[in-house]
């Protein structure tokens, strides 16, 4: 059926409304459920992974770069927040700006990594995250970072408020993905991911597109890391730079399906849900069940759960 500009515009509006509704529903649900469910830490972790999976979606889903060291930005955010709160005694919300700043500075330093691709990029980003961890956890820097002995931020401890700030960050991450999915800029990123040479011949600045996506993705992780530090208030460098944060976010994203809004959401709700259920009920079977799920996914649904629909030509939000 022929398409026209008017039809394309109508379809775009429908998509934006649907995507935004899903984003709003998730944020509202995570806000409301806090009133009914007492395990706040678990809910907070859900919010953390919902946001991280979308942050990773920005760089992987839209440009094809998969940074195994994504946790580096999360850790940078956590320490950016902690350092200004500990040493400058600034209000926590200002600390969040420092969290964002720390992640962005790290992202700028790591920009040359974007010259690599595939596994080389993934491994180099992991090494970079590990390097930042080694610096932060260095006992000689105890006066500044508290080294391996961990950070205590009891002055700003505010579990309820920080939970809602985390929700705001989740909303921001979701809206970023909604924007990328429905904007010409997002379309240009997908063009770069599909074929960077062809994208350049469409007039797209490949370097600029990748850089913006990289910074946005780092920004989300930095903000999440900052609010994690605020909410948890006592933590150690090996928690803030725990590689399993990267792995979890990656698995959730891939399980659901990258580039979509709903894929990473499904990935987190299903897999992190199972993780918590099994972890509490039958922890001895956790590794087995989780491993089997991931193997089945890789074998039968390499493009994630949403591919059950997309391979039938159905557009998934």
């Amino acid at each position, binding site marked *: *059926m*022929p*398409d*026209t*500009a008017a039809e*394309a515009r109508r379809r775009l509006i429908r998509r934006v409304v649907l995507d935004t509704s899903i984003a709003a529903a998730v944020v509202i649900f995570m806000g409301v459920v806090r009133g009914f469910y007492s395990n706040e830490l678990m809910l907070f972790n859900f919010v953390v992974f919902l946001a991280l999976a979308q942050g990773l979606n920005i760089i992987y889903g839209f440009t094809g770069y998969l940074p195994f060291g994504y946790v580096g930005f999360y850790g940078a955010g956590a320490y950016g927040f902690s350092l200004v709160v500990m040493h400058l005694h600034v209000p926590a919300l200002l600390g969040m700006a420092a969290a964002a700043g720390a992640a962005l500075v790290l992202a700028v330093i790591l920009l040359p990594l974007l010259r690599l691709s595939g596994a080389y990029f993934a491994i180099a980003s992991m090494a970079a995250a590990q390097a930042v961890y080694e610096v932060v956890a260095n006992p000689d820097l105890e006066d500044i970072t508290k080294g391996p002995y961990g950070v205590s931020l009891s002055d700003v401890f505010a579990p309820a408020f920080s939970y809602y700030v985390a929700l705001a960050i989740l909303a921001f991450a979701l809206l970023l993905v909604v924007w990328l999915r429905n904007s*010409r800029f997002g*379309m*240009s990123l*997908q*063009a770069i*991911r*599909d*074929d960077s*040479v*062809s*994208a*350049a*011949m*469409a*007039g*797209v*600045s*490949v370097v600029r597109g990748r850089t913006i996506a990289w910074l946005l993705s780092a920004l989300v992780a930095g903000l999440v890391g900052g609010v994690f530090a605020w909410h948890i208030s006592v933590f150690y460098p090996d928690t803030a730079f725990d590689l399993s944060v990267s792995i979890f976010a990656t698995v959730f994203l891939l399980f659901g399906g990258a*580039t979509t809004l709903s894929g990473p959401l499904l990935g987190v709700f299903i897999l992190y849900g199972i993780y918590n259920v099994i972890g509490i009920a039958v922890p001895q079977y956790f590794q087995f069940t989780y491993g089997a799920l991931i193997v089945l996914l890789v074998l039968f649904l390499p493009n994630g759960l949403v591919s059950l629909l997309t391979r039938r030509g159905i557009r998934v939000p």
Partner: protein
Amino acid sequence: MSPEPLLNVEVLVKRFGGFRALDGVSFHLHPGEVLGLVGPNGSGKTTCINVICGLYAPDGGEVVFDGRSIAGEKSHRLVKAGINRTFQSPRPFLSLTVRENVEVAAHYGDPKPGFDIDALLALLELDRYSQRPAAELNSAQQKTLDLARAMATEPRLLLVDELAAGLNPAELSRMADRLRALADGGMALLVVEHLMGFIDKVTDRVVVMAAGREFFGGTLADATRDPEVIRVFLGGGHHG
């Protein structure tokens, strides 16, 4: 034909390690003119296109477009300046729809305001596939989409790299008509092609390349009578 060439390629050199893919090739091209670039495999035709469109930086020589040296400039800037190309193997954005493929170029390639994507798709007979992912198109359709992506940036110079390969006779004839129509509209075209029938139908003159440099310039009819051209294409035994 305008007296000033739109494109001037002067003693262009491109090396890959010790291999000189371009070894001092020179030619020029006027607005509205179709120049065929022919030669055996490995003679440097595609490398030449890759240098002109900014994919490779040259190691020597000059590329002057519209009176300005452009050698080594980034591709996306050259697209905005008015240069575009198609690829020997089509390279559409497979996860985007046909319309989105063209939309990206129409947005970032700086065509004139009010550029009509739908009219372009209709002109190239891609309108009925506009909502389909580019991955679902067949090879000939993907080649046409490649051309649509290039045309959406309204280039003044279009580099056409073996667009005809793999097309059936009817598709070939339609593609030749399209390219001629673009030239009649004032666009300059540099056409790399092995199919001599296609070259004959489309081009005003040809440059024959071998080993990275040109050694014949003129009409295709004259080229086919040139003993040196025959020797390069058929081997060393023929002496005219």
